[in-house]
């Protein structure tokens, strides 16, 4: 035991007996922790003394050392970086504590005078600072303050991926025949595998010597010159490995492959394995150590390679974090992973199968800790072959899956065990079978578990039913009726809207589960958010046929985590049985971008982002005209927003007034249609006589509130347009409202003007002129933006836009629909007067147009809100959505801070607590008591605190004050006051502690948690808790 090890954890304020996120003894790791295997592996590989997790993900690794010496630091940091799991390593010595980044590329032995680049900060061993450090990491403020030390770009998987990608590109440049690409990929795979065997000391100098080769490592073979000799030696080694290990990795005809490899290829491989950046030629320190790089990382890297190739098939890379989150979700509730079976119907590189095998093998090893090497090898192989099944129609994918599983399998054996296995020969089974080939790949596929075929060509007799189907199936509109997926769905009478192949996987995966079996898939968000009758029918069938128990909506993380992903992702877990439609609840989690995520890829799900939807509510929504808006309401909307939206959406909608082309003819006063489509090169044309020569383009900035003739250009009154173009010219006639696609520009025009199909027009009779102006004002209003944001299927999910159907679903009551019809009519006329006045003013003062429109808009806003009966408390919700939420959606880069990721200011907190107190006081008027509040915050800790005190109603004091206490001791006092069984709570996630006449609210410091909307919801939560308490028996 080092001297540093004495009670270090309590200095950090950590107690493994109380805090389930802090682990000091690997034996204490509960199997209920989804990533138990990862944590045990970290303890073993890195000889750790403790791990702090968050949301089941490792956050900090603690390691005690005698002294923090440069050489030791270099070694430990390299191991830690290669391990690639936790973002922070803390080295603890007797007198000091060093904090290192797991996302800083290791460098060669550092100069002892120079601080290592990976060192983030040094801390003294004094309690408060260490406790503050832990809180700041948990809250994410540490990642904000030290943002430059983090970021996934330099993490081991991305670094290795970049280098391998560059190497592969260089290798490919050497060949003209693209058929060689597959061969080069196989070679690269095999080299990484060989490197892995050397780094783990499975093969060594002696192994090379036995086949007449000299050297210690693969690198030594590659530097032999001439290159032809190096190649011969390399393939000699491959042949030996093939004989010893068998398996699909060495299944191809090596001698034929060897003849295709050139000297240039050998040079490139030499450079890669000697740490020269093949793209720049720059020499560097070889940072990789495959002894520590997790197998899933290698698997994920290959998946990336593979899916880059297969974009046309809709296949995309499954990042490691996504694979882990999917596995955690899928396996929750499985008491044991052994004696169960698993299928990945689109296995790619096998990232899920590898993850499953690692977890199963970990459980097996704990069950049989004393198993001998040969038994372990046999049993684990049997476990792999009897439990796992994978399908992919790409042969390279199948081989990479086999390769990943080999690595995972060997990883579970020690080097002696592997050598024993190797002596027996054929250490690894053939795993891949390709039914389209006459003979199985390579040798006899006695234990083929990876099937190279189209999932939709398999039936349940050829592919057994399993306990869990898990996977990231391809996405895209590619399941046409002539494809196996399309045919299968047609035969089964299953709906697949938009030919989305992922939907076909949803149906077929359930067919392959045993009774009570589960399916967990990564899916495009469109399967829940898309509108249209087919999409709604599909969703209805899905939620009624199978029991969906959890949905993880990752849409907000799209641009941070999926870099080039076009479509946002969902993780959905469901079981094969039909649900109880009255009582079933679906957990709906929608995490948002945070500093922990952008800098450390740690997905934090705050309580605000977890909701439960009842299936009965969902079914009602799916049966209604707004289907399927329920997912969107609960995405960014708080309970208060949902209540407000329910109210607004109960008004008559705009579509009650508007006739569209193709609609059943009804008695509706207005019409809507898009403008004409200009004729293209190969289009059939028709002539269209326009009612006016005036024309306005969709990009014209003049499309703002009102339009003047002078804003338009003149065109011919007869246009050649596409044959299928809209022919109804009524929409070009005044009075009309012009709306650009995307809902960005909206203007009223009092004269006839034409436009192309990027603009839609709403025309009505002259008597409705004022109403159409009011409609323009409403569509441009904050209220419409608010409703649009919380109801549109694409906004905040994919693109910030409203589809035409969504515009027509906006609430738009006519004055006679409202309680006070006279006042409503007055408002309509007043707004029309304001717009007319502004339009007139602009005619005489063109240069001031923007200011005039801005002023008029600000005069119109309160009138629109009055028309819709918006309560002052509801205005707060609109303000916060527009000012805090909308600017914060789908963050691309943390370099541009958005409100939700900014610290709440003292002023934000003061306004929050004022709103909280005034709302609570609204409900306490008969009790003779009121509340007042104090606020405090610490960006060092990443938390803010509000202290609310009950006082007599007649007491004279300010309702808000500044907290005159240090936050850290106060927080400790609060945590200590909590009963021991509840002390496990993570204070930075949100905590309400009632203490006599005081209430403490502890929340993350981020602005999102300190808005007035948050205050209203918190007040509701407090009131709800109190009121329900009073309902209980005395």
């Amino acid at each position, binding site marked *: 035991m080092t001297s540093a090890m004495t009670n270090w954890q309590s200095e950090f304020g950590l107690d493994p007996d109380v805090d389930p996120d802090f682990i000091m003894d690997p034996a204490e790791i509960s199997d209920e922790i989804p990533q138990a295997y990862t944590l045990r592996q970290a303890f073993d590989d890195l000889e750790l003394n403790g791990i702090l997790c968050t949301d089941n993900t490792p956050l900090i690794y603690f390691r005690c050392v005698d002294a923090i010496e440069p050489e030791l630091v270099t070694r430990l940091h390299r191991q830690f970086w290669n391990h690639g799991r936790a973002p922070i390593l803390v080295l603890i010595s007797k007198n000091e504590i060093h904090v290192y980044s797991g996302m800083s590329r290791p460098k060669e032995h550092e100069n002892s005078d120079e601080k290592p680049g990976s060192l983030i900060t040094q801390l003294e061993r004094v309690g408060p600072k260490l406790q503050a450090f832990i809180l700041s990491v948990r809250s994410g403020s540490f990642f904000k303050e030290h943002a430059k030390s983090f970021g996934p770009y330099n993490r081991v998987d991305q670094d290795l991926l970049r280098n391998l990608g560059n190497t592969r590109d260089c290798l490919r440049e050497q060949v003209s025949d693209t058929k060689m690409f597959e061969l080069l990929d196989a070679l690269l795979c095999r080299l990484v595998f060989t490197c892995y065997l050397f780094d783990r000391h499975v093969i060594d100098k002696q192994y090379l010597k036995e086949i007449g080769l000299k050297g210690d490592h693969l690198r030594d073979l590659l530097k032999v010159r001439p290159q032809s000799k190096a190649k011969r030696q390399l393939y000699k080694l491959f042949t030996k490995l093939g004989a010893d290990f068998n398996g699909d990795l060495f299944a191809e005809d090596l001698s034929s492959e060897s003849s295709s490899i050139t000297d240039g290829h050998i040079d490139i491989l030499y450079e890669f394995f000697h740490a020269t950046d093949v793209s720049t030629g720059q020499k560097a320190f070889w940072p990789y150590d495959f002894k520590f790089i997790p197998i899933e990382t290698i698997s994920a890297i290959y998946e990336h390679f593979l899916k880059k190739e297969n974009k046309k098939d809709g296949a995309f890379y499954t990042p490691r974090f996504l694979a882990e989150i999917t596995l955690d979700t899928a396996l929750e509730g499985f008491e044991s992973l052994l004696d169960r079976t698993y299928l990945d119907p689109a296995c790619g590189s096998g990232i899920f199968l590898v993850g499953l095998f690692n977890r199963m093998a970990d459980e097996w090893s704990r069950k049989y800790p004393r198993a001998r090497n040969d038994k372990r090898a046999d049993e684990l192989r049997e476990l792999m072959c009897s439990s796992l099944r994978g399908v992919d129609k790409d042969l390279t994918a199948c081989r990479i899956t086999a390769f990943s599983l080999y690595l995972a399998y060997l990883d579970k054996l020690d080097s002696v065990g592997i050598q024993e296995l190797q002596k027996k020969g054929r250490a690894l089974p053939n795993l891949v079978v390709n039914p389209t080939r006459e003979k199985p790949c390579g040798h006899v596929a006695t234990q083929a578990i990876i099937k190279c075929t189209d999932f939709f060509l398999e039936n349940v007799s050829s592919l057994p039913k399993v306990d869990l189907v898990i996977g990231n199936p391809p996405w895209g509109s590619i399941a046409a009726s002539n494809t196996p997926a399309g045919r299968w769905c047609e035969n089964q009478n299953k709906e697949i809207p938009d030919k989305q192949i992922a939907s076909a996987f949803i149906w077929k995966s359930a067919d392959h589960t045993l009774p009570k079996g589960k399916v967990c898939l990564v899916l495009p968000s469109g399967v829940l958010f898309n509108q249209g009758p087919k999409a709604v029918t599909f969703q209805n069938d899905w939620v009624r046929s199978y029991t969906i128990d959890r949905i993880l909506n990752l849409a907000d993380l799209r641009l941070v985590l999926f870099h080039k992903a076009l479509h946002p992702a969902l993780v959905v877990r469901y079981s094969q049985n039909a649900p109880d439609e*009255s*009582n079933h609840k679906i957990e709906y989690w929608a995490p948002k971008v945070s500093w922990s995520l952008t800098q450390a890829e740690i997905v934090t799900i705050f*309580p605000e982002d977890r909701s439960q939807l009842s299936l*009965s509510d969902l079914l009602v929504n799916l049966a209604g005209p707004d289907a399927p808006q329920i997912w969107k309401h609960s995405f960014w909307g708080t*309970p*208060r927003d*949902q*209540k*407000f939206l*329910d*109210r607004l959406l*109960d*008004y008559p909608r705009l579509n009650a007034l508007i006739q569209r082309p193709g609609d059943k003819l009804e008695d509706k006063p207005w019409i809507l249609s898009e403008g004409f489509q200009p004729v293209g090169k190969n289009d059939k044309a028709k002539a269209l006589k326009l009612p006016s020569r005036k024309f306005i383009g969709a990009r014209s900035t003049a499309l703002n509130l009102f339009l003047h003739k002078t804003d338009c250009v003149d065109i011919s009154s007869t246009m050649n347009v596409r044959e299928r173009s809209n022919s109804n010219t009524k929409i070009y006639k005044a009075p009309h409202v012009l709306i650009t696609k995307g809902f960005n520009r909206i203007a009223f025009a009092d004269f006839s003007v034409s436009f192309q199909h990027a603009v839609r027009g709403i025309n009505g009779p002259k008597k409705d002129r004022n109403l159409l102006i009011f409609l323009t004002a409403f569509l441009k209003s904050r209220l419409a933006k608010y409703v649009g944001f919380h109801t549109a299927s694409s906004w905040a999910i994919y693109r910030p836009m409203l589809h035409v159907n969504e515009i027509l679903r906006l609430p738009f009551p006519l004055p006679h629909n409202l*309680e006070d019809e006279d006042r409503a009519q007055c408002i309509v006329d007043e707004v029309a007067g304001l717009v007319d006045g502004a339009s007139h003013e602009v005619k005489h003062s063109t240069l001031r147009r923007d200011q005039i429109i801005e002023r008029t808009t600000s005069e119109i806003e309160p009138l629109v809100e009055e028309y819709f*009966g918006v*309560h002052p*408390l*509801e205005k707060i919700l609109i303000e916060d959505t527009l000012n805090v939420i909308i600017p914060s959606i789908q963050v691309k880069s943390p370099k541009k801070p958005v409100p939700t990721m900014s610290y709440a200011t003292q002023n934000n907190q003061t306004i929050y607590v004022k709103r909280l107190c005034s709302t*609570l006081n*609204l*409900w*306490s*008027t*008969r*009790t003779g*008591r009121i*509340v007042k509040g104090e606020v405090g915050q610490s960006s060092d800790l990443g938390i803010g605190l509000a202290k609310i005190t*009950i006082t007599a109603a007649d007491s004279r004091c300010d309702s808000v004050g500044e907290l005159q206490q240090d936050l850290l001791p106060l927080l400790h006092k609060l945590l200590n*006051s*909590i*009963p021991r069984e*509840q002390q496990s*709570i993570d204070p930075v*996630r*949100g*905590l*309400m*502690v*009632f*203490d*006599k*006449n005081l*209430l403490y609210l502890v929340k993350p410091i981020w602005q999102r948690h300190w808005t007035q909307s948050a205050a209203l*919801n918190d*007040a*509701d*939560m*407090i*009131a*709800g*808790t*109190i*009121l*329900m*308490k*009073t*309902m*209980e*028996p005395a």
Partner: protein
Amino acid sequence: MIVGLSDEWAKLIDPLIPEIFCLIVSAWSGMKPFPADQKENPTTKKLYKRLIMHRDIAELPFRIDYQLMDLDTEEGEDDGEMDIVFSPTCNRENIYFCLECKRMNVFNGRKTHPYSGEYVTRGMFRFISGQYSRIGRCGGMLAYVMNGDLSGAMSAVERVMKTHHEKLGMTPPISFHKTSFRPQDDFMKETHHVRNTSATSSFSIYHLFVARPGAEKRWKSSGPVKKKYSDIRFNPLKDDD
């Protein structure tokens, strides 16, 4: 995570039943006339729509649901749907207040049916048996008096309550009591009960009798709507004087 709710805080907010009834009365006052033979559900649905559209709902920490199934019904009980339910905004699993609606004095073309028996046996009984508001100390009954004879409807209900007073857990003399928060209102009353089930024992039911809009004006109707009840102290279990 909420920890350690103390009695001091439990006393901060008075039960918001007066505010709920204020909202109901206000919403009802704007109901448009409807036919005397209109069924109960369409009326309740219209009232519900008016409640959720009411601007003042923003001032209450509740959301309102229509015809919600009580998931806590015991075996053997029918799965009655509660007509209108007020639940905490942030925790919809809990039900704060349930309102059961019944038609009374319905003319079917030949004669007027009082339906006072229905009011008691298919309304009040559901609270007393614990089928509704198992957790809770009070509930609400709303009578749509179709012919507008509010006093007549109330007397009829009182008579049935007397017949069933044991089953209703009421102690004689059986009658309606004034409500603490609307004592001057002749058509807003409360009754006190002891429930002999696994549900909370002491229980109050608030009764509001409202006239169908468009009914003949020969009977006295509910008093003017007060905007706020902030000056009235309210205790749902307070014995009537």
